[in-house]
């Protein structure tokens, strides 16, 4: 083994690479010698938190990942679920938090690019994206800049690559001031028997590098950026952020789908985090083979790159293919047609070793399996935060009842978290590929399924991504149950049957027992919800170290649900489409105000227990909604979420296609305090509208879903009154709509008017 350069590895250098003394000792044992510098780089990324899931693995193992429809659970690029007629969907959500905080446009863009590659590397054509975003308060100019940059990045990449962005959620809270969250979801469709996996099988088969050339960008993105806390000096890590090229990605999608339709390949994998290193190790490990590779054959963007840089670069838009022997020329021909590099860089070997040469010398020789097998699994200490119980204390009796419900409703509609997100999603192509039945702005997106040859099917997929971080902070178990329940409920509101979940678990520093406790509680909640709802967790991602200068984010376990609707032409919308419909409220309203938007906004309190979730009720609700839609009795279904019933009814009035505004008259039986009735956030509730309320009430009774008729659609006002006395709220819908629509623009336009530039903000 010859040293590739002057750098001599020792424990000190290993520590600088984020490895512990124990881990370094393990490396010495595996190799039987001191690692070379490139080898140290490989171990540091393969065993980083980001790649090895060392802190989270213990808990992720407890999630239900199997089901009769599940074709692929966690472990590959993404999860795969059968949707019938020989088709499957492949989907996953992934974080790109730290890069987006440092460089919002490129960070978010490459987040989209990365998740797309996870999907099409399995053979699926990506058809729909969602994004879950969290920022600090918009009165902070830096966060206005970050919001603009992230939206620009997501749109710039997604629009150019030709994949519709059909939904998502965006929230604002002070806890994200030092660490925003950018979680990107994508879903693709594939023939179920044509799902590709990242396997380097067949000794002697060529290993082919395709896509963009390798440059010096993103080196140590996974180990240094994603696996450590932020500090004031993190700006210096900006060079670890990659730069995206959606045009190359678009060509790569087409070329990869073309080559995967042939019998030329045996395996394919995205070069994502840790680039060439991670993809080659994982491909060899899955097939119990080895790989020998010559780095001089790797297409390079610049001269003089070292083996260390070539192995650890996270340059975007690259894939690693293992082809059948003799297929090299045909594979190259396809990629050349799309003007992409394709180079044979190595072969599959039988000896289970990763042997990498550079300039005629062997610079890396590591046994493949021990790297994966000996990857550290930690059982980090847990501790319930000392102030957890205090946070949960809320005496409703000592809380002044809302004395101006109309003003409260306006304040809620004007808040950035509840206000219209049209400013964001109008910058995204929501329509490309021609499948968007329901786009952003409703409970769930609904996307019709076509086969790869363009033949439309009778199926559509409903997609939603959700989390209430305040609830998760107040009670990580219940909060995560609620996140899963809400995303499944949103999907069910279209009439679709929820099939499976994916999740992006955004947490602070796992080395702190309090954070690890939150994580353990959250995964326990996710497992419970997934089991009860029959929706296995088929893929996911963990993002730790979301804290800056010791200020942690609230636990934010973002959950995305995917549902199936068939035939797709029968679906419910989340707005009132016409006058004269009966309005029903499903579910029970309990005396719950803990963790509510109303409490935070009108009383300045983040306290109490979040609303409980009755998972058995949720499951019954799914069945009822699907039947109601199928029979045609159910026209509108809108989940009652943040802001409670008053906000849900307002949204039903103006969240339809532009220009469609339908008011309503609602009467509530005054059994509880009025702020609970109007703004309480009890879960499992849905506002539905129907032309056949009697039939729907009968169905609800049969299915065991509480349902009560509360009013009728019509008029140009939102009117909510107690059964006796003057209305609590009687407001022109146009006024409410204008407040809601202006919530984001009014906070962003001031900068645009004065032309604030990035340099002035930072």
């Amino acid at each position, binding site marked *: 083994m010859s040293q590739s350069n002057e750098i001599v590895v020792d424990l000190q250098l290993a520590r600088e690479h984020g490895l512990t003394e124990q881990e370094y000792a393990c490396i010495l044992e595996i190799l039987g010698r001191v690692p070379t510098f490139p080898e140290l780089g490989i171990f540091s990324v393969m065993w980083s938190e980001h790649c090895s899931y060392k802190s989270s693995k213990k808990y992720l193992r407890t999630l239900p990942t199997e089901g009769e429809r599940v074709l692929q659970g966690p472990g590959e690029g993404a999860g795969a679920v059968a949707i019938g007629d020989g088709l499957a969907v492949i989907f996953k959500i992934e974080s790109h938090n730290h890069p987006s905080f440092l460089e919002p446009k490129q960070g978010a863009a490459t987040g989209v690019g990365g998740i797309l590659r996870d999907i099409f590397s399995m053979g699926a054509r990506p058809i729909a994206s969602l994004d879950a975003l969290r920022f600090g308060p918009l009165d902070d100019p830096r966060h206005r800049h970050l919001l603009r940059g992230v939206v620009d990045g997501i749109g710039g990449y997604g629009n150019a690559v*030709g994949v519709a962005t059909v939904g998502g959620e965006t929230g604002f809270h002070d806890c994200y001031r030092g660490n925003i969250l950018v979680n990107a979801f994508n879903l693709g469709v594939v023939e179920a028997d044509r799902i590709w996996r990242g396997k380097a099988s067949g000794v002697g088969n060529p290993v082919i590098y395709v896509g963009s050339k390798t440059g010096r960008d993103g080196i140590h993105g996974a180990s240094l950026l994603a696996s450590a806390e932020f500090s004031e000096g993190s700006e210096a890590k900006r060079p670890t952020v990659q730069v995206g090229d*959606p*045009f190359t990605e*678009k060509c790569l999608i087409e070329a990869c789908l073309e080559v995967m339709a042939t019998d030329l390949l045996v395996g394919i994998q995205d070069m994502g985090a840790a680039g060439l290193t991670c993809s080659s190790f994982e491909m060899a490990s899955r097939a119990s083979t080895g790989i020998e590779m010559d780095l001089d054959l790797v297409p390079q963007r610049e001269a003089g790159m070292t083996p260390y840089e070539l192995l650890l670069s996270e340059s975007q838009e690259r894939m690693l293919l293992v082809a059948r022997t003799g297929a090299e020329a045909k594979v190259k021909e396809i990629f050349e047609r799309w003007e992409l590099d394709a180079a044979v860089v190595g072969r599959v070997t039988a000896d289970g070793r990763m042997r990498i040469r550079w300039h005629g010398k062997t610079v890396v020789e590591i046994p493949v399996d021990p790297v994966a097998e000996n990857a550290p699994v930690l059982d980090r200490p847990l501790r319930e935060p000392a102030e957890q119980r205090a946070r949960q204390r809320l005496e409703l009796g000592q809380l002044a009842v809302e004395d101006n419900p109309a003003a409260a409703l306006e304040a809620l509609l004007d808040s950035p978290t509840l206000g219209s997100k049209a400013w964001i999603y109008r*910058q995204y192509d929501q329509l*490309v590929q*021609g499948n968007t*039945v329901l786009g952003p702005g409703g409970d769930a997106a609904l996307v019709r399924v*076509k086969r790869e040859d*363009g033949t439309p099917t009778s199926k559509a997929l409903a997609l939603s991504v959700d989390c209430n971080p305040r609830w998760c902070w107040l009670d990580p178990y219940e909060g995560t149950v609620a996140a899963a329940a809400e995303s499944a409920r949103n999907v069910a509101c279209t009439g679709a049957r929820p099939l499976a979940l994916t999740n992006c678990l955004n947490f602070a520093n796992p080395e702190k027992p309090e954070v690890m406790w939150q994580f353990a509680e959250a995964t326990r909640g996710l497992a419970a919800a997934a089991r009860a709802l029959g929706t296995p967790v088929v893929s996911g991602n963990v993002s730790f170290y979301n804290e800056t200068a010791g200020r942690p984010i609230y636990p934010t376990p973002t959950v995305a649900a995917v549902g199936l609707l068939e035939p797709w032409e029968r679906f419910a919308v989340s707005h009132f489409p016409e006058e004269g419909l009966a309005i029903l409220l499903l579910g029970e309203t309990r005396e719950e105000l803990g963790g509510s938007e109303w409490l935070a906004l009108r009383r300045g309190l983040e306290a109490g227990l979040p609303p409980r979730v009755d998972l058995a009720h949720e499951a019954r609700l799914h069945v009822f909604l699907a039947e109601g839609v199928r029979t045609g009795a159910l026209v509108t279904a809108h989940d009652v979420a943040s802001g409670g019933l008053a906000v849900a009814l307002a949204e039903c009035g103006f969240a339809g296609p532009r220009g469609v505004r339908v008011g309503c008259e609602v009467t509530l039986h005054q059994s509880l305090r009025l702020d609970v009735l109007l703004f309480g956030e009890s879960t499992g509730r849905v506002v539905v509208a129907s032309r056949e309320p009697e039939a729907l009430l009968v169905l609800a009774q049969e299915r065991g879903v509480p349902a009560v008729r509360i009013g009728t659609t019509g008029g140009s006002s939102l009117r909510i009154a107690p059964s006796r006395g003057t209305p609590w709220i009687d407001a022109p819908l146009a006024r409410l709509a204008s407040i809601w629509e202006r919530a984001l623009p009014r906070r962003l336009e001031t900068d645009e008017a004065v032309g604030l530039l990035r340099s002035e903000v930072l």
Partner: protein
Amino acid sequence: MFAVVQFPGSNDDRDMHFALKSVLGAPASLVWHKAAQLPPDTRAVLLPGGFSYGDYLRCGAMARFSPIMAAVRRFVEAGGFVLGTCNGFQILCEAGLLPGALVRNRDLHFVCDFVYVRVERADTAFTSRAHPDQLLRLPIKHGEGCYFASSELLAALEAKGQIVLRYATPDGAIVPAANPNGSVGNIAGIVNEAGNVFGLMPHPEHAVEPALGGTDGRTILGSLLDRVKREAV
């Protein structure tokens, strides 16, 4: 036969093909940009939306040099019908097959939304299924759809009746509030002097199915289909 040209980076190509073939029942095929010739039975050429060559230079500035564009130019000179939507419109302007230019939207943001356009000319090959002043509800999705023309050019376009579509309010008013991108004169689509080349920023191919954006796009694509059929008789 309708030839839908595929540039690298086109991304509404398959959608246009789907709209023509599967929805309108027109014979259509995808033609790769490297082809030197259009298929011999080509009756109309469609330049689809997308980001040809990534649009890293001006939109459409690279695509105009693709080999197929020489064939498209010959086709136009021979009187053939060409329709460019969005990026296709940008390519036609860059290629000089349509006058004027498309620049960054007024507010600098990409915009995806449904808009109304008023049919100013119902006697073109691309709008014969419409009646004058008919309003069409069509989606737009572009970052550089602000049509620019000098005042002389604008006057000439008006005089020669080359302005086919204008952004309008839902009740048909041509006012600044209805203009999504800052285009001069609310222009959404124009034809060349000969009337055989049409460029528009809205996407008719994304408005051909009732539950997926409505069917107003059929008015445009169907008009072209009618015309091609008539010529074939």
